[in-house]
C-alpha cells in the first residue's frame, strides 16, 4: 500500500442491492489505519442526523442498520485521529471502507488533497485542526512552537515569529493559503500577520518538494492551509470562546460554511482582546493586545473541469510593548537590566495600550483557478495581492507619541501559472510552473523620522520543476528552481542636506534538491535529502540605515553583500517496535556560505542621545548541525508517554563562536491519556489529558562580547491540559482547560528581547469552549 497513491480516506465501494424509499438500508464496512493497514477497533461511526451510530469491532468492522433513503452526514472519530465527516447519499445498501490517519503524534504525516487523494509525503511535520481548535487563543507562532525543531523569537508575549531549525525572518517563508506572506518580515519584532484559526492544518515541508511553493527557501517552508469547503449543502460551523487568566485575554472565533452548486462559501472571524500580562511577581505594563480578523472563502465550479476559489482576508492587530523596555541608549539598557522589576511597572492591571506599540493591518485577496486537463493533470492559475501596513509607535516628545515613529506600507502582487500531473500509472508526478512577484514598499513621510528601511521595488520571476517518483519501497523527489530578482531602491542619505540616492541590483537565485525515502519494512523507514539554494541579500541587509529602536543599536546595511549559498543535508529515520514504541528522528547539517548577519562593531557611535553600539551587516560562513527527535511509548491502552527534543549547534565557522539569536536546546516529556469512552450514547466523549514538562537549556556557545548582557539561565516549565467533547442536542461542545507554567516559575528566555528587562509570563489558565454545528 505504500507504493501508490493511497486512495482517499474514503473509498466508496457502493454495492447496490435494493432501490426504494424504505428504511431498511444498511451501511457497513471496515476502518483501517492508513499507515499500517491494520483494522482499527473502537472507532466511532455515527450518523448524527438520525442519532444512529456504532463502534467498530475487533476486526475493524461496523454495521449501521435501518437507514432510510436520503442524504446524511457520516462522522468517523477515533482518539488520536482527526474527526472525519462525509456527506453521503443513500439510495441502497452501502459498503464504505474508511482509512483513517492514526498518526497525529508523529513527525511524519499524510497529506489530504482536495481531489480525494492521499499521498505519503516525506519530511513533514504538522499541526492538525483539532489542535488549532483547542488553541484558538494562540498566535500562529505560539501554536506551532510545540513542534519538534520549532521555536520562536519574540519581543514580549504577543509579538513573535517562528524559528525552524535556526531559520527565520528573511530565511523562512510562511505561506498563507499558498501565498508567501509579504510584509516586514526582516525584524525580530515583527509577527506574521496570519490568524491560525483559518487553517485546517499547519505544516512544515522540507526538501525537494518544497520547491513548488513560492518564497525564499533554504530547505524548509511553513504552510498555513485552509480546507476546501467540500460538498455538504447544509450550514456547518463552529463558535468558540476563550479566556486566559494571565492578561485576561478573551475572544471568540466563528466559522461557518456551506456548499452550494452555484457558490460555496466559508467565513472565519476572530476577535481577541488582552491586557497586561503578569510575571510571577509583577505586571508587564503595556503588554495588551487587540486583534480583529476576518476571512471569506468562495468556491465556484465554472465547469466540471474548472474550479475557482476566491479568498479574501483581513488581519488587524494592535500590540503593546512593555513600557519599561523602551530605552534611549546603551546606559539605559544596562540600568534597566539591573533592576528587579522594570521601570514604569504599574500596580494595577489595564487593558490600555500606549506607546510603545504596533498597529499592523494585513489584507490579502487571492484568486485561484484550477483547470483539469484529465483526471490526473491540471493547470493552476493564481493571482494575489497583499497590502501590509505597519505602524510602530514610540514614546516621543511634543505630543508626538500618536504619530508613528516607523510607518511602512507594502504592496505585494503575485501571479503563478503551474502545470501538474499526478498520474498513478506512470509512477512519476510532475509539478512545474512560473511565478511572478512584485513588492512595492513605501514609507509615508509623516513620521518625522528618517526611515530605517528605504522605499523600494523588488520584482522576482521564478521557474520551477519538481518531480516525484513512487515505487513500492522507494520514493524519490527531485526539484529545481531559478529566480531572477530585480531591486530598485530610493534611499534618503544623511547630509546635510539630505538627498535621495537610487540603487539598482539584479540577482540570479538557483535551487536544486534531491531526496530519497526507503521503506525498510512496514514499520521502518529511512530518508535523506540534499538541498542547495541561494538567497539574495534582502533590502534591510543592504540598505538599512539608522537607529533600530527595537534593538537599541545603529544598524548599517552593507551594499557590498553577496548572495548566501546554502547546502542542507537531512537524514530521517522512523521505526515502530511491536506497535508500542515509536522512534522518529531527523538530523540535519546546513552550511551557509556568505551567511549574512549583524556584526557588532567595536565602535560605539556618539550621538546627541549618548553612545549606541553600531551593527553592520557582514558575511561569514555559518554551520548548523541539529537533531529533532520524538519517542512515543504506548504504556497502557489509551496512554502514551512521549519524549521529544531539539538540539541545534549554530556556529560562525570563521570565528569559531556561536551564532547569536539561535534557539537553545530543549527536551520535553509528556504523558497523554486519550479515552474515547466507547459507550454509544455517553454524554462525554474523547476525554483527554496531557501533562508535561518542557526543559530549555542555557545557551553555552555565546561569548560575553557577543551580547550586551549575560545569557539567561536554563528553565523548566510544567503544563497541563484537560478536555472532552460533550453531547448537546446531537451537536458537540468541546471543552478544554489548559494550564501553562503551572508552578508559576520565574524565568527568562534568550530569544525574547524582553529578557533584558523583565521576567516571562507567570502561570496562565486558559479555558476554551467550542460548539460545533
Amino acid at each position, binding site marked *: 500500500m505504500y507504493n501508490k497513491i493511497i486512495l482517499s480516506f474514503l473509498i466508496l465501494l457502493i454495492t447496490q442491492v435494493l432501490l426504494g424509499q424504505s428504511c431498511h438500508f444498511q451501511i457497513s464496512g471496515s476502518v483501517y489505519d492508513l499507515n499500517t493497514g491494520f483494522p482499527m477497533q473502537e472507532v466511532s461511526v455515527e450518523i448524527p442526523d438520525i442519532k444512529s451510530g456504532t463502534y467498530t469491532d475487533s476486526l475493524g468492522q461496523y454495521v449501521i442498520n435501518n437507514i432510510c433513503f436520503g442524504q446524511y452526514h457520516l462522522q468517523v472519530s477515533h482518539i488520536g485521529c482527526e474527526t472525519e465527516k462525509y456527506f453521503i447519499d443513500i439510495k441502497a445498501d452501502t459498503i464504505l471502507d474508511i482509512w483513517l490517519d492514526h498518526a497525529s503524534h508523529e513527525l511524519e504525516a499524510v497529506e489530504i488533497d482536495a481531489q480525494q487523494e492521499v499521498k505519503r509525503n516525506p519530511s513533514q511535520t504538522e499541526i492538525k485542526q483539532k489542535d488549532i481548535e483547542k488553541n484558538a487563543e494562540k498566535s500562529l507562532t505560539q501554536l506551532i512552537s510545540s513542534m519538534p525543531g520549532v521555536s520562536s523569537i519574540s519581543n514580549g508575549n504577543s509579538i513573535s515569529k517562528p524559528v525552524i531549525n535556526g531559520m527565520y525572518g528573511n530565511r523562512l517563508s510562511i505561506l498563507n493559503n499558498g501565498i508567501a506572506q509579504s510584509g516586514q518580515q526582516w525584524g525580530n519584532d515583527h509577527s506574521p500577520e496570519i490568524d491560525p484559526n483559518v487553517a485546517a492544518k499547519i505544516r512544515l515541508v522540507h526538501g525537494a518538494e518544497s520547491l513548488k511553493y513560492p518564497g525564499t527557501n533554504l530547505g524548509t517552508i511553513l504552510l498555513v492551509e485552509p480546507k476546501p469547503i467540500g460538498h455538504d449543502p447544509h450550514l456547518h460551523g463552529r463558535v468558540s470562546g476563550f479566556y486566559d487568566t494571565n492578561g485576561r485575554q478573551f475572544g471568540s472565533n466563528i466559522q461557518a460554511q456551506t456548499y452550494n452548486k452555484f457558490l460555496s462559501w466559508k467565513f472565519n472571524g476572530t476577535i481577541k482582546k488582552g491586557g497586561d500580562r503578569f510575571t510571577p511577581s509583577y505586571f508587564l505594563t503595556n503588554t495588551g493586545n487587540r486583534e480583529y480578523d476576518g476571512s471569506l472563502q468562495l468556491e465556484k465550479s465554472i465547469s466540471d473541469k474548472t474550479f475557482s476559489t476566491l479568498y479574501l482576508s483581513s488581519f488587524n492587530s494592535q500590540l503593546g510593548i512593555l513600557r519599561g523596555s523602551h530605552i534611549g541608549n546603551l*546606559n539605559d539598557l544596562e540600568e534597566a537590566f539591573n533592576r528587579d522589576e522594570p521601570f514604569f511597572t504599574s500596580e494595577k492591571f489595564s487593558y490600555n495600550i500606549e506607546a510603545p506599540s504596533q498597529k499592523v493591518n494585513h489584507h490579502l485577496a487571492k484568486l485561484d483557478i484550477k483547470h483539469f486537463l484529465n483526471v490526473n493533470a491540471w493547470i493552476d492559475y493564481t493571482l494575489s495581492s497583499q497590502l501590509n501596513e505597519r505602524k510602530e509607535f514610540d514614546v516621543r516628545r*511634543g505630543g508626538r507619541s500618536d504619530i508613528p515613529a516607523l510607518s511602512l506600507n507594502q504592496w505585494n502582487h503575485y501571479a503563478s501559472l503551474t*502545470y501538474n500531473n499526478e498520474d498513478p500509472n506512470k509512477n512519476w508526478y510532475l509539478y512545474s510552473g512560473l511565478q511572478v512577484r512584485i513588492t512595492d514598499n*513605501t514609507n509615508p*513621510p509623516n513620521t518625522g523620522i528618517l*526611515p530605517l528601511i528605504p522605499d*523600494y521595488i523588488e520584482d522576482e520571476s521564478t521557474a520551477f520543476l519538481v518531480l516525484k517518483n513512487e515505487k513500492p519501497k522507494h520514493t524519490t523527489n527531485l526539484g529545481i528552481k531559478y529566480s531572477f530578482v530585480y531591486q530598485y531602491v530610493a534611499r534618503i542619505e*544623511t547630509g546635510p542636506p539630505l538627498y535621495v540616492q537610487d540603487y539598482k541590483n539584479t540577482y540570479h537565485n538557483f535551487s536544486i534538491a534531491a531526496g530519497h525515502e526507503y521503506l525498510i519494512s512496514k514499520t521502518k523507514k529511512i530518508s535523506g535529502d540534499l538541498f542547495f539554494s541561494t538567497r539574495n541579500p534582502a533590502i534591510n541587509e543592504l540598505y538599512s540605515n539608522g537607529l533600530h529602536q527595537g534593538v537599541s543599536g545603529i544598524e548599517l546595511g552593507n551594499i557590498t553583500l553577496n548572495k548566501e549559498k546554502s547546502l542542507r543535508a537531512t537524514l530521517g529515520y522512523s521505526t515502530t517496535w511491536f506497535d508500542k514504541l515509536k522512534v522518529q528522528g531527523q538530523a540535519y547539517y546546513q552550511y551557509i556560505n556568505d551567511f549574512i548577519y549583524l556584526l557588532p562593531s567595536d565602535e560605539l557611535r*556618539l550621538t*546627541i542621545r549618548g553612545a549606541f553600539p553600531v551593527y553592520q551587516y557582514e558575511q561569514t560562513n555559518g554551520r548548523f548541525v541539529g537533531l529533532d527527535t520524538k519517542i512515543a511509548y504506548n504504556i497502557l491502552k489509551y496512554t502514551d508517554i512521549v519524549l521529544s527534543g531539539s538540539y541545534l549547534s549554530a556556529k560562525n565557522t570563521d570565528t569559531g563562536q556561536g551564532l547569536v539569536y539561535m534557539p537553545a536546546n530543549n527536551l520535553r516529556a509528556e504523558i497523554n491519556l486519550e479515552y474515547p469512552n466507547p459507550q454509544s450514547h455517553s454524554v462525554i466523549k474523547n476525554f483527554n489529558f496531557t501533562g508535561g514538562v518542557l526543559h530549555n537549556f542555557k545557551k553555552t556557545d555565546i561569548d560575553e562580547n557577543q551580547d550586551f548582557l549575560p545569557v539567561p539561565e536554563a528553565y523548566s516549565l510544567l503544563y497541563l491540559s484537560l478536555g472532552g467533547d460533550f453531547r448537546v442536542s446531537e451537536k458537540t461542545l468541546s471543552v478544554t482547560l489548559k494550564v501553562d507554567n503551572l508552578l508559576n516559575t520565574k524565568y527568562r528566555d534568550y530569544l525574547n528581547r524582553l529578557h533584558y528587562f523583565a521576567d516571562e509570563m507567570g502561570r496562565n489558565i486558559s479555558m476554551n469552549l467550542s460548539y460545533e454545528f
Partner: protein
Amino acid sequence: MRNFRKILFAVLIFGIISVIFSCKKDDPIIPNEEELITTVRLKLINISNAKQVEFSFRDIDGEGGEAPVITAGILEKNSIYLGEISLLNEQTNPADNITAEVEEEGVDHQFFFETDVLGVSFYYQDTDIDGKPIGILFQLATQDAGQGTMTIILRHQADKNADGVSNGDITNAGGETDLEISFDLNVQ
C-alpha cells in the same frame, strides 16, 4: 486542441501581468525631523565677574553620518556660574528651538548633571508646574582646579518622585534618554 488553446490563453494572461513590471520607485518625500536635536548649547555666566563661557555639541546630520563637533570652555576655580541650556534643531532654517518644547512638557523632562571633577556641584534653578526641577536653568559651583568630564543627560518621562531624583540623582529616575552628551571639563 481546445486544451492547447486554453493553455495558450493562460500563458498570455500571465505574460501580460509579467510585463506590467514596475521598475522604478518614485523618490521618497524627505521627512521633516521636527523632534531632532542637533545642537546643545550651554551658556555659563560667572556671577562674580560676568564672564561668559560656552560649551556646545553639534551633530548637524543627526544620528549616524559625521561625528559631532564638541567645543568646551574653561571654568575658573572657586566660582559660581549661572547656567542655561538651549537645544536646537539646526537642520531647519531658521533653527527650531527645542528648549521651548522641553519647557512646555516640563513635568516629563529633567536634566541630570554628572562630573568626575572634585568640588564641582550642580543645583537646579527652575521648576515644572508640580514644583519639581527641570534643569534648563542651573547653577554650577567650582572649588579647586581640576580636569575631567561633565555629562549632561536629559531624561524623558523620568519618575521625578523617586528617591533622590529631585536632587539630581539619576539612579532611580527611569524613563528614556533623549540626550546624553559629555564635555571635557577644565577648572583652572
